[in-house]
């Protein structure tokens, strides 16, 4: 894991987002290297989705910056989007478009030709077993199908960095396995993945580096081994997670 080059792909520095008096994300700093599979772990409401939305240029940071490949995520959003594929936690689609039409639409918006779109999407559709429903309006899909469709849309333009918000949330075991295999394959092919989850075993299975956030703040960051070795009392990621996040809560309340 150490052998891959330490080129910084995503750099978050002092990123904060404030809603009124409420700090959704507070002073977050971390780096993701090219080729990393980076997990951002945290309980509900820790600020994972807010962070991801700031990376996508959907939200404007209150202070601090996030850069992908040296480009600011907010002010240079258009260029950043060429490099990034995004899967939201709860993708909502247009009322009147079929799945296949959405694939076409996304491809066209990325400037791909129709032949390219077909060539790129065909294997993905087969892998995620979505072929049968693509003729149906996407609003009628179940949550899992929507998520699979959104994943295809995110992968169409072969992005360098995949940003996934709870990628397997709502998927059945088959689809979960398919997504996991896909992620590992992409990582092998040299792509980087930044994903959020609250499933610890998923993090353990997939990621090379972990960032644990709680209440909008970064609690720990590093490779799995580094984190486990911090103290001998943590035998597993689960122990670490609970001690870090619950400790934070107590501190906060005090």
């Amino acid at each position: 894991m150490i052998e891959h080059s330490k080129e910084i792909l995503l750099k978050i520095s002092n990123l904060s987002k404030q809603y009124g008096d409420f700090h959704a994300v507070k002073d977050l700093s971390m780096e993701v290297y090219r080729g990393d599979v980076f997990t951002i772990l945290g309980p509900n409401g820790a600020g994972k989705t807010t962070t991801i939305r700031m990376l996508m240029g959907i939200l404007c940071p209150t202070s601090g910056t996030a850069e992908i490949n040296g480009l600011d995520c907010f002010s240079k959003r258009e260029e950043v989007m060429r490099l990034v594929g995004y899967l939201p936690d709860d993708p909502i689609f247009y009322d009147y478009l079929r799945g296949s039409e959405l694939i076409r639409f996304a491809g066209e918006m990325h400037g791909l030709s129709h032949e390219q779109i077909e060539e790129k999407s065909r294997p993905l559709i087969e892998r995620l077993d979505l072929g049968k429903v693509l003729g149906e309006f996407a609003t009628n899909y179940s949550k899992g199908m929507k998520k699979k469709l959104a994943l295809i849309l995110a992968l169409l333009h072969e992005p360098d960095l995949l940003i996934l918000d709870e990628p397997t949330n709502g998927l059945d075991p088959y689809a979960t396995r398919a997504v996991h295999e896909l992620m590992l394959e992409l990582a092998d092919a040299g792509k980087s993945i930044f994903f959020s989850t609250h499933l610890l075993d998923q993090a353990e299975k997939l990621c090379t580096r972990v960032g644990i956030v709680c209440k909008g703040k970064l609690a720990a960051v590093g490779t799995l081994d580094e984190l486990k070795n911090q103290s001998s009392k943590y035998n597993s990621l689960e122990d670490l997670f609970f001690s870090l996040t619950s400790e934070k809560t107590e501190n906060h309340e005090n």
Partner: protein
Amino acid sequence: MKTKNMGFYQTLVSYGKMSVKRWVNKFSVIQFRKKKEEERTGTRKKSKSGFFMIMMCVLMMFSAFSMCYRLLNVYSYDLNKRFIDKEKPYILNEYVYNLLKKYVAFDSKESKIEITKLFDRIAFNKLKDKLKNTPSYSDFLKGKVKIKSDKSITRNLWKILNTKGISGFAYVKRKMDSFRTFPINLKILFKLLGIISIIAFIALFFMALANKNDNLGQVEWTMEWLFSFPVPTKSLFMIKVLEYTFFSPLQWFIYFPFHTIIFLLLDFVWWHAGLLGFLSTVYLSVLLSSFRLVCEIWIRLNLPRSSIKNIQALFTIVGMFFLLSVFFLSNSHTIPIFLIEIAENLPFSFLFCPITFPLRLLFGGMDILLLLCIIAIFVLIPAICLMIAKKMVSKGLLKSTGVFQGSRNIETTKVLSRKTIFRGVISKDLKHLWRDKNHMVQTLVVPLIIVLYNIFITPDLMQNIISSFNTIALLAFAIGGYTFVFGCFQVLNIEQQSLWLLFTFPEGIKKILTKKIIMWAFIGMGYPIIILVGGFVLIPFSLSMVLKTVIVITSLFLYAFLAGGMGILATNPMETEATKRINSGESMGYFLLLAVFGGSLYLNNILNILVMMFLIFVLVFATWQKVDDNIPFLLDPINDAPSKIDLKTGMISVFLFFFLQQVLFLCYLGTSWSSQQQVIASYFTSGLLVILGLLYSLYRNKVKDIFKKTGLRSELPKKIKRTHIKNAFFAGIGVSVLGVAYLKIIDVSGFFVKERNMFMENSGKNLSGSFFWLLVLYVFLAPVFEEFLFRGIVFQGFRRSTGLKVSIACSAIVFALVHNVVAIIPVFLLGVVTAYFFEKTNWLIPSIIIHMIYNAVIISV
């Protein structure tokens, strides 16, 4: 733990509470506390529609009441006129009738002389005119009202007067008094009202089913959720019927005023009338809701979701047709003949129809038997409907889970490799327009229906339209502008909650939205172009027609962007509830702007039109500046764009400045000051108010360094300041010399004579007085206020988004346009020079000095 089954009343109470809460939340003014909480935790952007909704409701109710009043008034008047006693062939108006009465009653010499005079040649014309408008009943029956020859009228009149006296005539009082005396033929009136009531019932039924935001329009069926509770099906349906009864505003806007007014005019006490109106409305609404429930369930069960939308579109057309009919019937000046014929041929027992039953009850008095009937209907029909509904869902609420239902099994490969003309967002929006039949009907069919309907009910309209190219251009502009409300105005709204998808593409959101607006503009242009082409065919060609066409098409493009910008600003993409996502108040503002330009288009003064087009252009510019600021924050739950000095506030404050002057002047009229002092006082207060208001709003929106940004304060070193002021002196003298020279040239050449005389007259009236006050106004107040507004705000607003030359030119044109026509060129020049100085120094003092010198020189000359 085993919970008890919920009884009907418990369910009613808890569900009722929820419904009431949902409706209260729609008027979000009341929701104040909750909103604050949301703001704190950042769950939702604030929406401002609450106050507007309440105002709208009050206004709607008021106009509904006045419309119903008018309806009854007109109908009973008309019936009086038409169905008055057959024995009395002449219907006279008050004047003639009184004359005749005098003659018969007093039989005095004087009045006899008067009457005979009346039938003299000279006075005869008077009577003849009156009689021309009063047809006899037999003429009416023949269907044609012919005006008889003067001689025969006189002969008849004499004959009747001699044989039957005054009782041979009938007379009608003036319109507004006609109510208290209900028409002689009350049966006909009630039959007419019954017909209207039935039409309204049909209209309401279809409109309720067509509602986009209600049950049928939504993806999730609320019934599914309700079925998850341990409540018997029957009570659920009953509660649903009650919800439809009390929370369907359109029903209440139509039936409540209609019945209340009828009761009022039958001399009920007001609260009796109100109560009875309420009961009648509840009765009718319960019937309506029961039918609606059965239909909704049937449609949900038997039709796939994609075709539900199409059915809804059809219902919109049908409902609109009937609703327009109701409006037409209650707004016409007389009762349409065909309606009277229908009413005459219908038997009176037709009022036993359940829908018209409240009317029948009224007519017959409070008969016990009838009352029992009505109660029986009131119980039976809903009960039957509920039974049918229950039977329908006995095999399950849904026939399939919906996911695969309606799937067309199109081969993926086929769709993916199909060739299309349009790509990207354009193709997406076109698909939306084609598939959302409801939207398509609203955009493309409803304008057509409205126009055709109006032509149908007033045949003269077509003649008027065709008579000149001006009206054709106006019609084209109006239809185009109207369709933009459903196209361009909705560009952001139409993205629904899928806006996130657009954010993942490597293309600017503004660029995408602009593309969409252009596409929708072309769609909206369809009808106008057809109408304009029609105009070219029908009207002999002239060059001014080409000019008009160019003007209409360019201004439509401007309005497309205006609608787009206003729509984007009015949309809150974070809002999940479709009805609240777009603020309908903004579309009212847009309609107002549409009407303003339509007016100047009709007046046909080219210069005026061009000025209007320029102002609209500035407005578009200002709106899009604001859009630019807001676009990055579209999906931010609470943060809005950081405020800056922008053109929109600038234009609004300029408008306010002049508007307030007029208003305040009216206020000062009451004082004992001289008219000159009044003018100055209103100028001073309005300027002060606007400037203070502006500064306060900038301060509230947390703009930093307000004084520095508006040029009130400068941090330049003193030396540089001094040279700037020196330069300003020279520039001021230069501009004023040019100004004076220009005025002299005009003097000699005789341009603008009329305008100048008018200007002299006006200013002479206002400004005759001491020279001191003149100096105060023109040399001190005007430069300070106007420089602050036009350079400090408007010029800066332009400058933020465009280059130096364009912003100098535009701000100077705006500056010149608000001044008198005579001096338009030198004022423009003044605007250019002051703007240039402001740009150089970022300080208002040099510009103010230039302005002062110019004004002083012009006045003294």
